[in-house]
């Protein structure tokens, strides 16, 4: 952990938990993100929608610390975290649930969850047990399968486990990459209800979704990301009624999509 990164560069704000300022990310010569500005308020859900290849996953990976930032700043609660290591960000209360889940396939559900609390390993056993009980309360299905290997779970259960594992580090900010990917409508609804429940308990969420309709329904704020740039920003309501968004992302062809 670097002392530099701990210095407060902006004063922590009462409303803003995450501030992304002028972020640029490159894959070699390819510029995947350019001058991206995003804010996530405390206890709010911000959605990022956009077409395939827009750079949504890249954005979350860079914020989490999996990818280096080529330009710009990222502040979490007034602390500059651009370039910080993933484990330091997890310890600061920022957890990413990636598109690919990245579970420990040959370990049990319970072991996966307990590893989610690795950053709290110095906290007491009792505290971690309480977190485990909380995860099982949110996802009772995981408790039924606590001794099953993660690799044998269904797609929906895997997503629950990925989300539950991220919650075990007691995050202040959750980065969710396509939580509805490949899931049946009923499970999508369940997961989105959990996300709404988290907001009620003060957890902020940055939600990346292909399923724009569902995402805009639960989000407070929203961003449209296209070819690496934010082309539209505003409240979720404003985006949901924007003609461009309606045509390209909420269009007729998508009416059959599950809502919440």
């Amino acid at each position, binding site marked *: 952990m670097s*002392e*530099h990164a701990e210095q407060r560069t902006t004063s922590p704000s009462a409303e803003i938990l995450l501030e992304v300022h002028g972020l640029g990310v490159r894959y070699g010569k390819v510029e995947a993100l350019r001058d991206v500005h995003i804010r996530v308020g405390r206890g709010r859900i911000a959605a990022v929608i956009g077409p395939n290849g827009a750079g949504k996953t890249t954005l979350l990976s860079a914020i989490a610390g*999996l990818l280096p930032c080529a330009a710009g700043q990222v502040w979490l609660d007034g602390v500059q975290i651009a370039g910080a290591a993933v*484990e330091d960000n997890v310890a600061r209360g920022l957890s990413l649930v990636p598109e690919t889940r990245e579970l*420990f*396939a040959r370990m049990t559900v319970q072991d996966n969850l307990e*590893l989610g609390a690795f*950053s709290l390993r110095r906290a007491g056993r009792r505290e971690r047990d309480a977190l485990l009980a909380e995860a099982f309360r949110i996802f009772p299905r995981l408790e039924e399968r606590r001794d099953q290997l993660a690799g044998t779970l269904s797609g929906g259960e895997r997503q629950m486990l990925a989300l539950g*594992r*991220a919650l075990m580090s007691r995050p202040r900010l959750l980065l969710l990459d396509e939580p509805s990917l490949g899931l049946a409508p009923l499970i999508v609804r369940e997961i989105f209800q959990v996300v709404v429940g988290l907001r009620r308990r003060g957890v902020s969420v940055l939600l990346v979704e292909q399923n724009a309709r569902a995402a805009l329904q639960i989000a407070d704020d929203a961003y449209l990301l296209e070819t690496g740039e934010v082309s539209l920003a505003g409240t979720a309501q404003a985006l949901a009624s924007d003609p461009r968004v309606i045509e390209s992302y909420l269009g007729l062809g998508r009416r059959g999509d599950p809502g919440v």
Partner: protein
Amino acid sequence: MSIDIALLLGQDGVVNGAIYALLALALVLVFSVTRVIFIPQGEFVAYGGLTLAALQEGRGPGTFWLLCAVRVAVALADGIAALRAGSGRSLRWALAGDLGYLTLLAAVLYLAPFASWPAWVQIPLALALVVPLGPAVYRLAYQPLAGASILVLLIVSVAVHVALVSLGLLFFGAEGSQTRAFSDARLELGRVEVGAQALCVVLFSVALMAALHAFFERTSYGKALRASAMNRVGARLVGIPVGLSGRLSFALAALIGALSGILIAPITTLYYDTGFLMGLKGFVGAIIGGLASYPVAVGGALLVGLIEALASFWASAYKEVIVFALVVPVLVWRSLRTHHLEDDE
């Protein structure tokens, strides 16, 4: 071959096989966590045995100066990294810890009559000298190359092996050493006479394997190591630092290596370069399990020990050739069974 000879050879094979099995476990562990094929694994065998021998002869072991030099190098590397990142707080604590540890060791080595201490005190002292070399080797040679290909890491392993053998010659000299046996008793088991030391080797090896198993299954650090081996990205996402799992796996490898050396030092004369062949035999066992399966690696290593014992009876001049020629059918068999070893998540 009479039944007595067969039993004798079998005993030899199991004792050596137990040591190869320990080394094979260390190799699988290091490879699965860091993708490093740890050729220098055997050097820790020699360091462990020779350090204990030096302690028993009342000489301050050269390992101490090696440890000092290596810790200074690590501090420099950490210092440069910290300067780049513009931080230093954790570094100061690490330096203070290093300094305290080395001072304590120096005090023991210069003031205490360690030569007359019983083995159960000398052995932890030897381990305290050798084991910290493991994470230091990781920090200096491998951590800066964390993203490199398996081939690059292998080339680095060859270099580290050469360096550690040379340092072994420098600090321990060219003479071989043996340590006192834990016990000289001989036991009658049916029609075979078993040396108590040989029995110790096997029992300790089994105990160490059981302890490792418990560590991986029960403790949060053990689970974190398994998780890092299983899914690197997932491990980072739950906040397991890459450096931590690397250092931990190398510390365990050094511990296993040094203990193996301490176990066989009473029955084999160890030289500064003895470890290499043992490490290679452990490696043959490990690749039978594809460098991925712990139980198969143990079984493979035992097989290597038994084949070696038989070979030394039938064709002792070709003993090593026969053992290493085993690699060929193993590789052919594995290449038929698996399609890719590299990204076997």
